[in-house]
């Protein structure tokens, strides 16, 4: 039963689901092949989407017509806007999801796509013809032919699970088989591979928790949606709980350290510094008096709780012992033990910004296999790999997001340019233009781009247009409307700001600290010519305009800096520059550049190990090379 498609997506995790959706949206025949169709969009670890920076990525994925935002809204059982005490530019939406509902929601969204087929099988090999990929073979011997292949095998490639000191058992995730043939097949193509590790905490039975000894944490009342184009039905909401582990736990962990797979030397791969195991925390911060532990519901219809903060690879009995030192968990019943997993990834300098491999035409990688960690990071790459695979099949230029356009752009550029030496996770600090990359303006940043490459349905495109129109109109209102002292003095004083002596433009008042856009709008209502511009506004419009206007000066500065950088990045570096012969560059720089082969000068500037002097020399070398070839710079 051989079959022919334009794009083949291998793997149905967060990267795979988005890649398949993006490709199918763009109108090319797409198939997603994964060993278990009921687990598409499965959450391997914590059933939560978003957070600081990551939440913005989830909104970017949504703005690009992706699956994640809708699936999150349809399965969320608690929502909180993180960093709310800070400025809106760094707000991070985060949702706790129902572990079972999420994949169902993903599947629902995928089922809407006509040009997408699903097929349940393990892919065991790629089919290649003269340096380009032409299809995949499954374990059962079926060949799928395609113009482009997107591999998103997550933590499955030669995955090994560790708990305590038992020799690691092969697995892609608890209870699922690892992907060994595919890993070997990819390795035989001459691709560079390395190992990373990550871990997950134990789960417990909520009925055994003494809730009088832990702190309840409810979600936000206000409904803020991830999905901008479609309103999903949001399930009932649930609380989370907070408690603090202290000396008792520290003692159990340190007494048993040598039994840990992570610390006993069983695992050689590097783990994320940002999401350390409890073993790591105890060893690295011996003086911290206590560690925060969140108890998070796994779903609406289960009493199981996820113990956030206690990821571990200690033996199960030690896990139970240390859990029982935590206030509220004295009599806890553990339902699943935590474990660590070690897996293959492909150092991402082997990729182009389109996520296509430099050396193998038509082959794209997305997600954890590129050295990242996190659902959102995987999803963001999935969209880009999926759309670019489709564009490749159509013979069109790839879609590449810039660093000042999206966190996804930052993520991919970091991967490709800098490489990774530990599992890569996004932070706002990775972006040099974080004021531009906000959760409230994802639509404005990416909506039109998405529409133009065919990532939006007609209906979504209409919603987009309406939303942008509303924002523009509202922005104009703030710029054009003068408000009279009578109308606004009370609210200004309320905000701790001084009254005004004559009419002042609304935008100027908005820039005052603590003055709210909504209040100014209501105050301006008496202005009969304009009517009430707030009526019928879509959710998020007011917020987006408010943030943009309030911080216009700063945002403008960021934009200027971005433009300058863009200018610099225009100097293109040829793919075949003989870096190793550039004697004026340090040896390290020559090697790094030869390895990464940056596409622009700006990218070269971000390669670690390339000094300023090297850059200067690079410029001169390129000039010389070009002068010799009679070209201008």
């Amino acid at each position, binding site marked *: 039963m051989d079959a022919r498609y334009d794009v083949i997506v291998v793997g149905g995790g967060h990267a795979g689901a988005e890649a398949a959706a993006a490709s199918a949206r763009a109108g090319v025949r797409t198939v997603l092949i994964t060993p278990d169709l009921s687990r598409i969009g499965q959450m391997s670890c914590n059933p939560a989407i978003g957070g600081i920076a990551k939440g913005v990525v989830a909104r970017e994925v949504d703005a690009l017509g992706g699956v994640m935002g809708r699936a999150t809204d349809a399965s969320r059982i608690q929502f909180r806007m*993180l*960093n709310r005490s800070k400025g809106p530019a760094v707000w991070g939406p985060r949702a706790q999801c129902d572990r079972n509902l999420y994949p169902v929601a993903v599947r629902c969204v995928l089922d809407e796509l006509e040009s997408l087929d699903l097929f349940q099988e393990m892919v065991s090999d790629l089919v290649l013809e003269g340096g380009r990929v032409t299809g995949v073979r499954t374990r059962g011997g079926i060949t799928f032919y395609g113009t482009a292949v997107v591999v998103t095998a997550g933590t499955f490639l030669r995955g090994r699970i560790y708990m305590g000191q038992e020799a690691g058992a092969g697995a892609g995730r608890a209870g699922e088989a690892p992907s060994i043939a595919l890993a070997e097949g990819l390795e035989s193509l001459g691709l560079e591979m390395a190992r990373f590790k990550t871990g997950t905490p134990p789960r417990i039975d909520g009925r055994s928790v003494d809730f009088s000894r832990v702190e309840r944490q409810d979600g936000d009342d206000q409904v803020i949606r991830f999905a901008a184009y479609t309103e999903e039905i949001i399930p009932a909401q649930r609380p989370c709980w907070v408690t603090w582990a202290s000396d008792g736990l520290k003692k159990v962990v340190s007494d048993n350290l040598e039994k840990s797979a992570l610390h006993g030397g069983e695992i050689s791969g590097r783990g994320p510094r940002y999401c350390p195991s409890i073993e790591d925390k105890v060893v690295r911060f011996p003086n911290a008096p206590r560690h*925060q532990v969140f108890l998070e519901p796994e779903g609406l219809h289960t009493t199981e709780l996820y113990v956030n903060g206690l990821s571990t690879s200690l033996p199960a009995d030690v896990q139970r012992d240390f859990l029982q030192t935590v206030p509220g968990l004295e009599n806890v019943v553990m339902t699943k033990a935590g474990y660590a997993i070690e897996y293959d990834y492909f150092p991402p300098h082997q990729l182009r910004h389109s996520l296509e491999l430099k050396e193998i035409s038509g082959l794209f990688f997305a997600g954890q296999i590129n050295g990242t960690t996190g659902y959102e990071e995987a999803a963001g790459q999935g969209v880009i790999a999926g759309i670019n695979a489709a564009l490749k099949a159509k013979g069109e230029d790839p879609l590449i997001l810039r660093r000042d356009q999206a966190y996804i752009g930052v993520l991919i550029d970091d991967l490709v340019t800098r490489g990774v030496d530990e599992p890569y996770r996004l932070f706002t600090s990775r972006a040099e233009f974080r004021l531009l990359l906000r959760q409230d303006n994802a639509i404005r940043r990416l909506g039109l781009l998405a529409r133009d490459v065919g990532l939006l349905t007609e209906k979504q495109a209409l919603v987009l247009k309406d939303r942008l129109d509303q924002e523009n109109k509202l922005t104009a209102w703030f710029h054009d409307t003068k408000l009279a002292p009578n109308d606004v003095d009370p609210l200004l004083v309320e905000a701790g700001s001084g009254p005004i002596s004559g009419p002042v433009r609304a935008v100027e008042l908005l820039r005052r600290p603590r003055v709210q856009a909504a209040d100014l709008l209501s105050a301006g209502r008496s202005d009969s010519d304009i009517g009430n511009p707030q009526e019928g506004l879509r959710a998020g419009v007011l917020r987006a305009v408010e943030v943009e206007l309030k911080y216009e000066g700063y945002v403008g*500065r960021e934009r200027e800096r971005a433009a300058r950088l863009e200018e610099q990045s225009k100097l293109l570096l040829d793919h075949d520059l003989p870096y190793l012969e*550039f004697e004026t560059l340090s040896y390290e720089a020559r090697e790094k550049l030869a390895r990464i082969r940056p596409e622009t000068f700006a990218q070269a500037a971000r390669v670690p190990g390339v000094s300023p002097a090297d850059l200067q020399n690079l*410029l001169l070398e390129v000039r010389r090379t070009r002068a010799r070839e009679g070209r201008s710079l």
Partner: protein
Amino acid sequence: MDVDTIAAISTGPGVGAIAMVRVSGPEAGEVLLQLAPALDEIPAPRMARVIDVCEPDDGEVIDRAVATYYRKPESYTGEDVVELTCHGGVMAPRLVLSACLAAGARQAEAGEFTKRAYLRGKLDLIQAEAVSDLIDARSRAFHRAALRHMERGLSARITGLRESLVHLESLLVHHIDFPEEDEPPVALNVIAEEAKRVVQELDALLATAPEGELLREGALTVFAGRPNAGKSSVFNALLGEERAIVTEEPGTTRDALEETVQLSGFPFRLVDTAGLRESEGRVEQLGIEVALRYLKGADIVLFCIPAPEETSEEDRSFLEKITAPVVLLETKVDLTDGPERDTTELGGLAGAIRVSASSGQGLDQIRQLLPELAYSGLVGSLGDQPILTRQRHIRALKIARSEVELFRSSLKDGLPAEIASTHLRPAETALEEVLGVITVDDVLDVVFREFCVGK
């Protein structure tokens, strides 16, 4: 990739016993072998060898020289370097250089050796500039300031400031990116305090700028006063040579004369001008106009009134127009035993000195007072702390200062941390540009344009 080999005469023109021709680049050793057929291999690094320099084509001996070979990267430029110390004068260095060129080297461009040193990371941009300053230095004080830069005094300071900014950024990052960590984030007011410290450090550096800049050019010190007051005589006495014509005829000096001198090690541009009076003579009048123009731009004015003569109305009205600090010189004190002049009517003077060009009385007082007036901040502390002497540095540090101050005040005003933080990167960038860490092409061009060939 071909980096070529360059050569130039590195010692100044003019007659001297010896001169030096420098060759730098991958072929430097080869060039040496061609010039010195007696050598059968490139000499050991850093060992001086006496050679007969021969014309590469016909083997004719041009000069006898000392050749020293430096192997990369342990050389000034970071490349292979050969230094040929030959006989001085007009002919020998030129012949040696043209022999180097005949052996395949290319004539170096202005500043090219130092530029190569910078590009190979042997020097940072400030050090590269300091090299040119050391060569140009005309005063002990400026030389010392340049030497401090050469020794990375300023670079270390700016690097330290940049690190402080990076540290500030990391505190903010912790604040923004880890809201739920166990460790509470660093309080914003602690961050603001730290920023304040950086601003203060930048202020301290910037405070050296006005005098630092004077150090480069010399403080403009203008003689003024009625004709025949003895201006040119004191001017000559300070210079130690008969630079200006002196006669008993009033109106001797016409055009302004400018000379650079060091007084107690500090540089001054002394200007002798035409005596100030209402005059019909066209040439004299033009001279007076020139004098007035100098007075406008002066850092210090030395106003001369002969001790035996009364203060005149004209003196007073000229003095009123002068904005720079004025030192009254009572000249020709050898001609009178009269008491000191009552100077209250002359307005606020920066000092009054009784001098005699004939006896030399008062000259030491001038030499002492002028540095104290023009360089009050540097006298005594020179050499302890780096001094800003260049517009390029001053401009960048001012940008950095204003950005860090904005950062601090935004935090204080309760603006969100991520908004405040937009001021940090521009500040860092400004500092990085001074060091040449990120090199804007134009900056480099400007920097290296200042060099003359051979450095």
